[in-house]
């Protein structure tokens, strides 16, 4: 039979065959002399047919009809009032970006004490609604969480789970904390030695390919605070635009909060612990000279564990210290360069049970650093350490949890966990949308590739939906 008469050839051209069948056709084609011309003509014809169909007007429903459908189907089903004083990622940046005097800070704090009480109550209501709805979900066919083997190639060691009273902590700060009169001075204990005094010219920044990074060797740049409360505004905005086939202005999308709007499958803490720190280091997909550090914090399901009323962890502050022997420069993805959260004045925040917090750092590793033999005994073998301060709801003690991430060569990003690849995809996408002076050399194809194989369990369809958004955005951008 002439190959042109074989329905399988058409199926092959239209990508309808499985691997084995496709191989048979390929072989047949290679035996035919003018197969190249045949294929070219067929492909041309295919795209012309598609083009012809595309000329039809893009019929859709009326907006009233669409609204009618969407009216009863909100994706998020949490009820309850929002506390006024909840700091979002960007709000936190804004209000604490400028330098404040200590008096100002205390003043602000005094004003917010009654609010603290009211938002704790509001959060309690929300928390209870969440728990109720969680039970309701089980009846809705939800699978329970399946614990996965951690893919983390870096050992995360908990070094100190109670550095509360005393333990190197400034006594005055502790008293302040007890009285709730103001944010506590971050106890400046440098794990990796004293930083150098700030140079007025470089301002503690290093430059690579025209982009600036913070230099952890310099005073004021050693620590980076990452927000534990993030808003879903950016995500909601993006979703609204995507539903009508448009893309929002990148300036209105906060990459850090976009990353945090997705669910991640981080490990839960061991019983008795309040936080678990999941960490990974991989090559930066869009720049071979950089690494990405992915910090994923999971708050314990407190209420379930203890069978009591919901208890919130208060005065939470999460920060990361970079080892200047290992890290030449870093930046928190989604953070504006001139608006760093100040370690001393960073807002204390509350976190909710089961919540996840994700921070992605782009890191320029130190040249000539020895990666061969990591030793967990030696502080100098560490890449970074993560510190979480909070007030224990049980006994009102101040606690610090310090986890260190030992220094090893970063894995190739293809080998990173699904959570990390997905977070990196959202980061790359957010940066590509614009609104950032120097975006990475990421492309939509790369971002798509990152997300595509990182669906995980995708219980709520969020990740698949995001993949659709990437494709859509690429198409829209191409047309412009």
């Amino acid at each position, binding site marked *: 039979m002439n190959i042109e008469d074989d329905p399988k050839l058409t199926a092959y051209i239209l990508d309808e065959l499985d691997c084995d069948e496709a191989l048979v056709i390929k072989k047949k084609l290679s035996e035919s002399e003018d197969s190249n011309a045949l294929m070219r003509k067929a492909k041309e014809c*295919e795209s012309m047919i598609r083009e012809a*169909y595309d000329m039809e*007007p893009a019929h859709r429903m009326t907006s009233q009809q669409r609204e009618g459908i969407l009216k009863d189907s909100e994706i998020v089903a949490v009820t309850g009032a929002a506390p006024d004083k909840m700091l979002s990622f960007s709000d936190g940046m804004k209000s604490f970006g400028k330098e404040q005097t200590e008096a100002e800070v205390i003043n602000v704090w005094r004003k917010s004490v009654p609010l603290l009480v009211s938002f704790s109550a509001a959060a309690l209501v929300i928390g209870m609604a969440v728990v109720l709805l969680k039970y309701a979900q089980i009846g809705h066919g939800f699978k329970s969480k399946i614990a996965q083997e951690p893919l983390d190639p870096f050992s995360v060691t908990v070094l100190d789970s109670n550095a509360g009273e005393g333990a190197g902590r400034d006594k005055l700060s502790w008293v302040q904390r007890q009285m709730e009169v103001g944010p506590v001075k971050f106890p400046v204990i440098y794990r990796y030695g004293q930083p150098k005094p700030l140079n007025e010219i470089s301002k503690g920044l290093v430059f690579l390919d025209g982009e600036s990074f913070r230099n952890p060797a310099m005073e004021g740049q050693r620590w980076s605070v990452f927000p534990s409360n993030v808003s879903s505004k950016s995500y909601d905005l993006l979703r609204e635009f995507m539903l009508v086939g448009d893309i929002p202005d990148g300036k209105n999308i906060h990459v850090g909060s976009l990353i945090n709007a997705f669910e991640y499958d981080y490990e839960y803490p061991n019983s008795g612990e309040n936080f678990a720190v999941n960490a990974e280091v991989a090559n930066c997909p869009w720049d071979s000279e950089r690494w990405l550090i992915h910090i994923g914090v999971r708050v314990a399901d407190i209420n379930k564990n203890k069978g009591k009323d919901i208890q919130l962890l208060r005065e939470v502050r999460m920060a990361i210290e970079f080892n200047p022997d290992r890290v030449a420069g870093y930046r928190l993805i989604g953070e504006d360069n001139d608006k760093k959260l100040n370690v001393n004045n960073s807002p204390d925040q509350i976190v909710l049970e089961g919540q996840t917090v994700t921070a992605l750092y782009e890191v320029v590793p130190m040249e000539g650093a020895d990666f061969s033999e990591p030793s967990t005994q030696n502080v100098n073998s560490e890449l970074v350490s993560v510190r979480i301060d909070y007030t224990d709801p049980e006994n009102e003690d101040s606690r610090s949890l310090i986890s260190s991430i030992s220094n090893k060569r970063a894995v190739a990003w293809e080998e990173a966990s699904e959570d990390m690849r997905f977070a990196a995809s959202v980061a790359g996408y957010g940066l590509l949308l614009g609104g950032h002076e120097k975006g990475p050399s990421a492309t939509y194809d790369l971002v798509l590739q990152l997300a595509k194989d990182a669906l995980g369990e995708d219980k709520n369809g969020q990740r698949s939906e995001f993949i659709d958004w990437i494709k859509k955005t690429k198409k829209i951008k191409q047309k412009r």
Partner: protein
Amino acid sequence: MKEIKENNPMSASPRVIDPSAVLLRRALSEFEVPLTRYAVSILGDIERSRDAVQDTFIKLYAQEPKSVEDKLKAWIFTVCRNRCYDILKKEKRMKRLEDDKVHALASTIDDPAQLMARAEDRAKLNSDLRKLLSMIDELPGRQREVMRLKFQADLSYKEIGEALGITTGNVGFIVHSTFKKLREAMS
């Protein structure tokens, strides 16, 4: 019913997500246009097509997500197609899609601006594409429907088979013969 607090900054944190709503939105963003176009190709007018599409999405939201999400595309097109034929039946205007009946797509456009844009678009087309378009319009009913589902809505053979109630092999044969016919006519 579910309540939602607008701009609730807490909603980023532990939240309960309604999988039916996620599925609905995904389906809306992906299939609203191809589905409406498809409905228009059967019903011949935009108003009734919109109703059929709306009914389809309402029906989707009522489904248990797990039961449809694996075969979403086929499900949506099947339900919409059935809905279209129901409408035709109900209005006693059931015209069997006989091989000699031709749909005049241009008559389904109700917006003058769209009509203008379409005319301009068409004018720009080279003669080959115009020829192809009229050939597609003149295809026998089943072939026209299969080709539209394949090349416009991008359904797989299997999905088309499910939507039309015919075998995958049959779909493959129809696509192949029609595609070949068009190709030969083009050269």
